[in-house]
């Protein structure tokens, strides 16, 4: 049986690239970006990709970036219409669009909503102007607040806020205040995670002074308490939701090792072979110009390979062990095509180390296992 399928659409431009960001994003510059050209490229990409997903139902669509909220309302509508006409979307399909408070007006949000977007993910990062400047964001705290208000006015009832903590110069009270403000807006979902310095970014070449490890830990502990008290459930390492039905369907699909088709510049796909269950990964050209030139031809892929053997198990663990719920032996066997018995010794090792627990047939990380997830994952390398 094939795993559930999700669709990811990448939008590769931002007003300006942030110094901590290691995603495929490019500042638009003076020339702007070619919206019509890019939408056309997406259309031919999708057309060419259809045989790979046959008529499988798509449970979620995620338009990520970059800054997809640079798309005009009409452009977004056009794109979603195309998708609906080509792809079998589930009736309750979650359709998320990522928005930057620096590119967020009420009219555009309303147009997105009307076009069928039913979940908005806003990259707030912080409500503190000093912290926002340190992160190189294009928006300030009042724009951050306005974006949330606009989203509600535009009719979005499923909202995610991205907040980053342990920022340059941040104290424990600063971080708590950021989170408190976010909670006051009662978002359905919160992604709250620590700033990490990724290789290849401006911050990795020119590292900012970050709070020490103990401060980072205090922030995390204080934040957890605050979120729990506000009724948010920590269902994944950095994801909190107000209720079971507002868990992010799209991200859950990644974490449960489902399939996904990624279209757009630099997008990644993971697709199971219906005949033998083998896993293929594809990556599209990261440069928007190259992608647009080659879209619809085989040259639009920059890499394309099979994941084989125990690499599959490790990739599964890398995702599934992030979930508080963990995974069942059935899910492991279905997604990897391997018997659980082949990794039983490693699971037992994890239990001995107090990193894994088994409850009601579910294999899941303990609190300690979540805290030292990289150590836990080492067992499966």
């Amino acid at each position, binding site marked *: 049986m094939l795993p559930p399928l999700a669709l990811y659409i990448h939008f590769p431009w931002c007003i300006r690239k942030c110094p901590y960001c290691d995603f495929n994003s490019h500042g638009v510059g003076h020339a702007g970006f070619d919206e019509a050209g890019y939408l056309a490229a997406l259309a031919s990409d999708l057309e060419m990709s259809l045989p790979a997903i046959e008529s499988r139902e798509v449970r979620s669509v995620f338009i990520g970036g970059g800054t997809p909220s640079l798309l005009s309302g009409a452009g977004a509508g056009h794109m979603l219409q195309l998708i609906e006409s080509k792809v079998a979307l589930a009736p309750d399909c979650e359709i998320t669009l990522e928005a930057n408070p620096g590119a967020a007006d009420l009219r555009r949000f309303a147009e997105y909503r009307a076009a069928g977007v039913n979940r908005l993910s806003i990259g707030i990062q912080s409500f503190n102007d000093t912290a926002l400047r340190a992160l190189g964001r294009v928006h300030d705290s009042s724009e951050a607040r306005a974006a949330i208000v606009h989203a509600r006015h535009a009719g979005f009832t499923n909202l995610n806020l991205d907040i980053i903590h342990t920022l340059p110069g941040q104290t424990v009270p600063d971080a708590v205040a950021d989170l408190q403000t976010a909670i006051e807006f009662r978002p359905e979902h919160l992604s709250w995670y620590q700033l990490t310095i990724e290789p290849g970014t401006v911050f990795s070449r020119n590292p900012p002074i970050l709070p020490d490890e103990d401060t980072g830990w205090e922030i995390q502990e204080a934040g957890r308490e605050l979120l729990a008290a506000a009724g948010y459930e920590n269902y994944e390492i950095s994801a909190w939701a107000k209720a079971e039905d507002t868990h992010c369907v799209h991200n859950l699909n990644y974490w449960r090792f489902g399939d996904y088709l990624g279209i757009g510049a630099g997008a990644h796909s993971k697709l199971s072979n219906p005949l033998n269950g083998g896993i293929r990964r594809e990556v599209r050209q990261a440069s928007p110009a190259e992608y647009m030139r080659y879209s619809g031809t085989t040259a639009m892929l920059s890499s394309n390979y099979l994941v084989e053997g125990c690499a599959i198990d490790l990739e599964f663990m890398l995702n599934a062990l992030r979930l508080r719920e963990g995974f069942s032996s059935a899910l492991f066997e279905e997604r990897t095509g391997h018997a659980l018995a082949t990794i039983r010794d490693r699971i037992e090792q994890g239990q001995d180390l107090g990193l894994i627990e088994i409850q009601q047939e579910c294999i899941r990380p303990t609190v300690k296992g*979540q805290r030292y997830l990289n150590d836990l994952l080492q067992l499966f390398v």
Partner: protein
Amino acid sequence: MQNIRNFSIIAHIDHGKSTLADRFIQHCGGLTEREMSEQVLDSMDLERERGITIKAQSVRLEYRAVDGQIYQFNIIDTPGHVDFSYEVSRSLSACEGALLVVDAAQGVEAQSVANCFTAIENNLEVLPVLNKIDLPSADPEKVIVEIEEIIGIEAMDAVRVSAKTGQGVPELLEQIIRGIPPPKGNVTGPLKALIIDSWFDNYLGVVSLVRVFDGAINTGDKIRVMSTGQNHEITQLGVFTPKRTVRQTLATGEVGYVVTGLKDINAAPVGDTLTSARTPAATPLAGFKIIQPRVFAGMFPVDSGEFENFRDALSKLKLNDASLHYEPETSQALGSGFRCGFLGMLHMEIVQERLEREYDLDLITTTPTVVYEVETTDGQVTRVDNPAKLPDPGRLKEIREPIIRADILVPQEYIGNVITLCIEKRGIQKRMQYLGKQMSLEFELPLNEVVLDFFDRLKSVSRGYASFDYTYLRHQPANLVKLDILINGDRVDALSCIVHYDMAMKRGGELARKLKEFIPRQMFEVAIQAAIGSKILARTTVKALRKNVTAKCYGGDITRKRKLLEKQKEGKKRMKQFGSIEIPQKAFMAILHVGKEE
């Protein structure tokens, strides 16, 4: 024979010995311009990189002198490091003379003194040579006085050269003819040839460098190794010019190589005498003393599956390094490996480097230790080269440690520092002498203090100006104890060391602090304790990591994240798992880093 000159070049490291040899080769046309790579005598990669000579090498040159005659020069190269002083004496035993090369700017150093005395003991004619005369800081007059005062040989006529520019080299070649006597020997007597060195060549088998004292060797001759009584046929012989050049005969007084098709260098032991199988000589040549390894350390493959490869590599290295000793050792912490014996610290480093580089092995080397004589209450005396093998304190009657005589030369302004260091290292001052601006110091020091970090410390307290050489004197009783290291309460045998009781507290504290630096923070708190028996001397703690988790992971490039984990795992392979704690390779050598800034 009257036109043969056999000589060595004695010099301190960096005083230009190899460069001078190169200059001779070039001057005598031993190699074409194209073949002349710098320092041709140092052929091993490692030797060239470190600028030191490890193995004895020889080269035969034909020199047309001013008097119109052709002279045969056999230059036998000598290592310049204290660890290899034994190879120096083997080279010198094949010569009638030696050039003492002294850097005209640096002056006389302990190494040259020690080697020069060896040459004089061997009745060699020593010609002093002042090198680097082209340097602005050269002070030949001062150095001449030093040579005369410290070594006690006439130096007024010392040739002044620059091996780098070639200045003075022709004069030196002429002086060699006048100053070094030709070999003496019985041309018609039964063959007596001294084995100076033997090494293993992949194509030829065992190759021996020999000096013919009496008689001659011809290709096809049946020869006998005198110590073993075994007969072999000479399949090939020749000389190095420095290219290997096949000859038919090696005559009396000549130096060259012989090949007999042997596969084991122990069958052609260095220092042994070759004679004719048909008309053997009655008595062998005097030979020279083979020294025993003085420094021992455990070596363990990081990956226990590499043990067999490690054994193979050691046996191959041993083919060319008779001074390397090894026997299997098992450690609770490190598994199966070998206890290896070395001439000294540099020898140990070189062996480790060669094993890692040439045989692609990943090794953990434990703290080096010297050989103790241990007397138990039942009156038995054993030699202990491994702290783990020290008998129970209850059964110990006495531990005797090796004592050396250290000869140190140091400029006056650093004398205080050097004496302080020697006293800290439990040294006893025997002699101190003013020699111009230099001081000559003689100390008796326990070898176990010297193998740890003495050489580095000496260099640092004297800003690199002190030079040092040592000879073994005796074993002497001392109040020694085994210092153990406990990691989270468990004794790690590979981290134990034997120290003097008075130093135990200090060393234990330093070691615990150093280990704290080397052991990475992990999921658990790691307690490091230094102890004698059940008495804890010091404790440090490696704090647990607060967490170790990737903050964010949404679909996308999972393969990159997987590869990152795989790379981390690869890095962990270089650590040794001890229970649930990971200890990196270099922690096992922590004691060598005590007192050094990282």
